[in-house]
């Protein structure tokens, strides 16, 4: 067995799968955005909280700095460090610098703030306090620093003292992690709920389709009655189309059935006649009479064969019309060709065929079918003409129409009969010529396939004019 490895054919995926895929992709994208946003938010809010602690501690220390006997004295408050201890596992470093960066107390090797930043960092307290945060590595660890500058003014002294506090980042990292974990849990939950809702929605949307499917599946193959289902508006269109289609199918089937039974009748009756004629001939003792009867048998067999041929050609035609594409056809050439083929048989009947037509008449059509139609119409005109008369074939075109007319000088068709001759197997009751009664029916089928009109009018003084008019614009 051959195992074909195919690329996944997305257009064949189930709607459920497609919708789920699409919504999942969307949900995942939204969730990823959410995760990223929450991480940024978590980092920022953790940073903010712990920066506040740092600022608070620095302010507490700043308040305890005073001048004593002209010297800057920093009396470190325990509360400042208890504030910092809210980050229980983080190391703390600090230093206090006097004016001219003179070391007052604390760690003497702390990294300084990037100089430009301290100067530019403004604060709501005007010039009394200035502060700046920065990150640096100190003693092998990432440390967040705050530098707070306070203007110290006494009667004989004015200058900035600088308080710098650093704290390692364990607590802020874990707070940020905790916040983003919470957010992650929430997003995960939302994701699951959304997916569930979407699945439910898809199920609810597709359920009418399934109901429709099972309603159709439950039917017997001959039941073509319209479906009666309560379905949403979007799907009721489909139901209407299905009903319309079934109705048409029903019509077609009816037609086919009628055709089959008519055809059977049409074949059975001549066959029965043929059989009795043959029987008669067998029973006939007189050789002369037998010869005549046998000739009649032959004639009947020819007629029957004509009928069968017509039936078969109609079947072939119907098949071709259904299966073949249209192509550009030069109608003038096609008509001229048919006339040439029929000119000789016509002359044998004493009928003259005259063609008068425009050149280069192009049409998007099925050539085989057109040929059949033209042949049937021409055959009729020739067959029902009196010897010595003329059949005129005319092909004309303007911007919007192409019209083909065949006019003869035969008996014509009375107005009452005109609609009837298009029916299958209909033949005029006073028609003495042989024929199966299918020719015009086929011509009508071909015309309507090409969306052309087929009209019968009377010729003056006598005869019939058959006119086929194609819409140039209505290309198939």
């Amino acid at each position, binding site marked *: 067995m051959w195992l074909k490895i195919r690329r996944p054919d997305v257009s064949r995926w189930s709607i459920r799968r497609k919708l789920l895929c699409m919504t999942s992709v969307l949900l995942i994208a939204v969730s990823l955005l959410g995760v990223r946003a929450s991480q940024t938010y978590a980092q920022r809010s953790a940073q903010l909280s712990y920066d506040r602690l740092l600022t608070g501690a620095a302010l507490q220390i700043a308040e305890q700095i005073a001048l004593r006997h002209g010297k800057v004295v920093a009396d470190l408050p325990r509360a400042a460090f208890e504030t910092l201890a809210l980050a229980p596992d983080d*190391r703390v470093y600090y230093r206090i610098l006097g004016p001219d960066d003179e070391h007052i107390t604390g760690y003497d090797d702390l990294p300084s703030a990037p100089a430009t930043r301290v100067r530019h960092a403004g604060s709501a307290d005007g010039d009394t306090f200035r502060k700046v945060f920065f990150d640096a590595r100190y003693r092998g660890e990432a440390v967040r620093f705050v530098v707070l500058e306070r203007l110290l003014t006494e009667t004989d002294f004015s200058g900035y003292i600088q308080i710098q506090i650093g704290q390692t980042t364990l607590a802020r990292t874990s707070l940020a992690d905790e916040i983003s974990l919470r957010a992650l849990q929430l997003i995960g939950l939302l994701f699951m709920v959304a997916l569930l809702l979407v699945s439910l929605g898809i199920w609810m949307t597709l359920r009418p389709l399934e109901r429709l499917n099972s309603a159709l599946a439950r039917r017997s193959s001959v039941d073509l009655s319209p479906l009666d289902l309560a379905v949403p508006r979007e799907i009721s269109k489909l139901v209407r189309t299905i009903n319309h289609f079934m109705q048409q199918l029903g019509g077609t089937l009816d037609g086919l059935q009628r055709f089959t039974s008519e055809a059977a009748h049409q074949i059975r009756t001549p066959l029965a006649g043929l059989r009795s004629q043959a029987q008669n001939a067998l029973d006939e003792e007189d050789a002369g009479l037998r010869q005549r009867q046998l000739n009649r048998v032959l004639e009947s067999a020819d007629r029957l064969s004509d009928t069968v041929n017509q039936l078969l050609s109609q079947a072939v035609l119907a098949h071709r019309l259904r299966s073949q594409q249209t192509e550009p056809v030069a109608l003038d050439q096609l008509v001229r060709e048919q006339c040439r083929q029929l000119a000789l048989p016509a002359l044998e009947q004493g009928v003259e065929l005259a063609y008068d037509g425009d050149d280069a008449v192009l049409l998007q059509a099925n050539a085989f079918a057109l040929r059949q139609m033209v042949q049937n119409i021409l055959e009729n005109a020739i067959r029902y003409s009196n010897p010595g008369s003329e059949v005129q074939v005319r092909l004309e075109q303007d911007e919007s129409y192409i019209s083909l007319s065949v006019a003869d000088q035969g008996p014509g068709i009375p107005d009452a009969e005109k609609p009837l001759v298009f029916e299958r197997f209909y033949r005029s009751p006073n028609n003495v010529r042989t024929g199966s009664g299918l020719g015009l029916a086929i011509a009508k089928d071909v015309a309507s396939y090409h969306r052309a009109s087929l009209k019968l009018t009377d010729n003056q003084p006598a005869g019939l004019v058959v006119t086929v008019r194609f819409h140039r614009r209505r290309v198939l």
Partner: protein
Amino acid sequence: MRLSRLLTGLLLSATAAALQAETLWALPAKGTQASVLQIHGGADFVAIAPVLEAYQRKYPSIRVNYHEFGTRELYNRFLADLPKTPDLVMSSAMDLQFKLVNDGYAQPYRSAETQALPDWARWRNEIFGITYEPAVMVINSGFLDNETLPSSRAELIDLIRRKGDQVRGRIGTFDIETVGIGYLVWSHDNLRTASNGRLLESFSLHDTQLFSSSAAMLQQLALGNIVIAYNVLGSYAHAWARKYPVLSVVLPSDYTTVIMRSAFIPRASGNAPDAQRFLDFMLSLQGQQILADKSSLYPIRDDVSGETSAQNLRLSYSSPLRPIPLGVSLLVQTDAMKRSLILEEWRRAFEAPRGPGASAADDQ
């Protein structure tokens, strides 16, 4: 005596080097020596000896060199010897210990034993509390006549005021300039309570004597040369009170500050595995029981039974215990300027000549 009995089993080799403050106690391995554990200790060797002895019985291949210092000297030496460090540093000067750990000189260590410690007795898995030590008052009740013992600082101040001349020159406390834990406890109380100022005033008015160790203070108390000893370490106080029934130990009912003996393993330790084993041993039930039974120290574990267990301490006294937690607040006490401010206040109060026990020796 207990001390001499302990010493007979040990090879004592106190180095009479230039550094008077350092004493080396070398304990050879009980079996074939495989490694050496260098310990720098701020506790006196006698207190820690029983647990060392038990440790060596359990791990016979380890030789222990125990270097004994005053707590401040221990701190200074640690910084001076860098990058060379011992394998374990133990001291009761929590502030100095904490400062070294905060500054990144310790390595983290986690084990079942360290994880069992309460939160306030551990920081970053780098420094660990080993024993408790309440700071108590000891009164020679001989001089009280029929009066009741003072149970709080307020009552103590009141008593001193009432007795007046009777207690002049007969109150003793640590010299916080030289004694590390004296400074730790005093500065801690100072930062926490405003009433400390009144106590200091009362001490200075009555010519309080300053001592450099609990032992010296308690000896003078037992002799009756002083009658009140303030901020003595609880383990010593109880040991002396058992010997001299006239001494009454009081855990002040307003608050009793509790300090911790703590240990850390330096980052640059050359023998961290042995140090970790020793730390685990001290924190184990067996080690804690030995500290409680043989050294009369207060073990930090709740599940150790005995007279000096933390549990016992909590149950038998109504006094609110205030352990000084291992945390960044301790940095305040190590700040040079803060220290000089506290000492300045202290010195102003004691401008009078020093008491007889004052010297730059050990601080227990």
